[in-house]
């Protein structure tokens, strides 16, 4: 049975974690911390060693305007950081790990603190009515199964997990997930241990509910994109703003394949094509863009829902991608972001895969 180190959280999760970060900065365990802070109504990730600023820390901001994985990419792609602690949601940590496998983040000196996540509110809803924060959630958050560190999907690169679900009010359980995590807790003198059975029970129960809800929701989404016609229909209102691509933490290419002129042809060639087929949809690159992006990222997609949040015409693009991602990840028995030691399926091969191809 898991055990956690209990700390007080009478003023809420944010204050409790901020307190933890403050003392770790004072004790020089980290040179700086990466946390979201609140400025008026907005939230931003900051990298800081300013202890006073941590009073404004909002560990679980109600919205996600930037994915933490992308923040870490910007911070470490051109060379690693010195020792820092990053407080993030699971989907952000998992995205950062996926990016590390493609050398887009360097996580060597990043100490991850994850927190049980209830989900985030869609940006458009929050902007319209800030009071819906914490009440309304992204559709993908509502069916998220990796909101904590339980079950098969738990990320192995988390150092400390802050458990809140099923934990007594006014308390928080810090669960060391790595030897690094253990030694940090020791250095901070947090040694009061408590059984984490309630938290495990609560999270496992929620995960079970979510798994069922996820299956149901994604099956429904799958129906809407059935066949080429379904796909054409769903994406036909796409305005090609490419917001989904720019907010996606996994889409890390410097110049997107679809921005290149690969698919463009001469007028004469288009005419050849239209005549041969009798009719030609103008233009058919929209679907190619989405299908191309899908094939590029589906193995690494962490179902964070950034793309859907950013879509100005309400295409359920995150749910559609999750349908595909779930199935392609299952083929390789791969959970994106689970472990930085696990190679991405398309970057490695097993000998029996080759035989399988040869034998067919």
């Amino acid at each position: 049975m898991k055990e956690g180190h209990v700390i007080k959280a009478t003023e809420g999760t944010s204050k409790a974690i901020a307190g933890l970060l403050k003392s770790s900065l004072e004790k020089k365990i980290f040179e700086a911390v990466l946390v979201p802070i609140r400025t008026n109504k907005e939230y931003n990730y900051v990298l800081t060693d300013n202890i006073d600023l941590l009073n404004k820390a909002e560990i679980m901001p109600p919205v996600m305007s930037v994915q933490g994985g992308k923040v870490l990419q910007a911070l470490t792609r051109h060379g690693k950081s010195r020792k820092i602690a990053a407080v993030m949601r699971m989907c952000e940590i998992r995205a950062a790990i996926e990016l590390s496998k493609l050398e887009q983040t360097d996580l060597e000196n990043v100490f991850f603190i994850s927190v049980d996540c209830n989900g985030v509110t869609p940006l458009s809803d929050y902007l319209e009515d800030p009071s819906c924060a914490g009440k309304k959630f992204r559709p993908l958050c509502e069916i998220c199964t990796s909101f904590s560190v339980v079950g098969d999907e738990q990320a192995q690169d988390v150092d400390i997990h802050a458990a809140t679900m099923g934990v007594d009010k006014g308390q928080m359980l810090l669960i060391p997930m790595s030897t690094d995590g253990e030694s940090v807790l020791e250095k901070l003198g947090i040694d009061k241990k408590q059984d984490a059975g309630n938290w495990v029970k609560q999270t496992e129960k929620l995960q079970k509910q979510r798994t069922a809800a996820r299956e149901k929701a994604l099956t429904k989404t799958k129906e809407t994109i059935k066949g080429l016609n379904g796909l054409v229909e769903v994406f036909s209102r796409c305005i090609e703003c490419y917001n989904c691509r720019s907010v996606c933490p996994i889409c890390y290419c410097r110049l997107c394949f679809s921005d290149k002129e690969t698919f463009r042809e001469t007028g004469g060639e288009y005419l050849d094509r239209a005549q041969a087929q009798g009719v030609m949809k103008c233009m058919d690159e929209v679907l190619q863009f989405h299908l191309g992006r899908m094939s590029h990222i589906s193995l690494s997609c962490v179902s964070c829902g950034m793309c859907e949040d950013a879509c100005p015409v309400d295409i359920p693009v995150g749910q559609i991608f999750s349908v595909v991602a779930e199935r392609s990840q299952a083929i390789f028995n791969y959970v994106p972001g689970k472990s930085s030691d696990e190679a991405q399926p398309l970057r490695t091969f097993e000998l029996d895969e080759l035989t399988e191809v040869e034998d067919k």
Partner: protein
Amino acid sequence: MDRKIGVYVCECGPNIADALDIDRVIEAVSGLENVAVVERYKLLCSPGGKKYLAEQIKEHGLTHLVVGACSPKQHEATFMGVCEEGRMNPFLMQMANLREQIAWITPDKEKATERAIRHMKAAVRRVRYHAPLEQKEIECNADVLVIGGGIAGMSAALLLSSPDRKVFLVEKNTELGGMVSRCEKLFPDMARGSEITESRVKSLKEDENIEVLTGTVVENVLGFFGNFVVTVREKESEPQEFKVGAVVVATGADLFDPSALAEYGYGKIKNVVTAPELEEMNLKGNITLENGNEPKSVGIIHCVGRKEKGYCSEVCCRVGMKISRYLKEKIPAVSITQFYQDLCVPGSGAQAFYEKTRNTGVEFVCTEAVKLSGSVEKIKIDHDGKIDTVDMVVLLPAIEPAKDTSEISEMLGVEKGKGGFLTEEHEKIGPVTTTVEGVCLAGTVSGPKTVRDAVSQSEAVAGKILSSLVPGRKLETEARTSKISESLCTGCRTCLTVCCYSAIEYDESRGVCVVNEVLCKGCGNCAAACPSGAATHQQFTPTQIYREVIEILR
């Protein structure tokens, strides 16, 4: 520039002309964008055909060429030559394989014609996007490094040396000769091993174009075919550097250590010896037990370690027979029993050798499992529940990769394959070359072999190197290589992991990967693996493939 595509369909005698309706194919491609001329011809690869095609290119001022004929494997080079004749860049030509892929395999003429139209359209659409590529040449060094002074290495060195080609033969041991020199007798002619090696050692030492470096190890090999830089070191002395154009790896193999398997009691039970230990005894002149007496009965056990290694070591059965032959010669009264799982005696002379051995009174017992136990000056052999008692047991251990094979594999970039031996480029049609151009394998470094096979490989290696690395001649590099776009590359280094030719480097300062055009063989692995479309094969660009596939699938 306005494109003018010339399209030519070869009748290939009756091969293509009878199988499909060429006139309909011509009609179908005639109106296509940029197509300037479409013609048919009886046999384009004939001298007349080639001349006709070259003249057509000039006459119509063609910028691109499509030839619908046979497999590019057969005549691509021919038609590329024709392009040069017509002063057109040869990479602006595309072939459509109408013979092997259509005419020969499609009995229905109607279907064949339809397929031919698709393939021709695909070639036309693709060729529009071909860019001229440049064939480059580089200077090369014709000298050769041979690593390993066993029978394979020595044979290769002797064949390769000439007044304008220096050979460096590097052997880590102080003596040349390797495994063969340690054999008292060799099958099937029962000649002395040292007879073969000594004459070679003598010739090597007399050859002034060969520099023999014994007691020396190769520390590093950098560069590529025609231009390798080698660093060697003799024990404590300073490292020495020299340049060569090719490398022959002939580092041999080792034998499986039977003490790893308890059932043989090797090292524990008295008078259980391995084949090389017996050879040594024989070489010294006396085959005796530990107490000094001659053995009256000997058991020879085959396949020691075969199950563990997962392969048959090919030569051990014949080694077992050889041993029984000379045991019989030396100690005529000795009784010999061979315990085998499967007998492997390939080769025209081997069957006769086997029968001759049997006729000398050697017993062969087929058995699944063998367990040895010692009992007062005797050894009990439990084979499938039956018990034999003998004075001496000779184990025939499996041949396994030499200990430094991994280091050599890493240093040269040659992969290890089945059983941990170095892998050849192709099991059947590239048995001595490797995926690293200019690095060849000879002898047991690539797997168990007889002396004869090892020497054959050395001769093959010499042939390969002599024909491709000619002193004074430049090397043509592959023109159809991959390129990595600096603006697209994210520096994820996926390409580095899939490049078989070590042709890609990561440029730390710019954070991007770069292709070395001399090393690149244009296999396209990087282009397929690149997640961000930065790596492209110059003759298989996404645009070209896309156009081609669209027409094929239409």
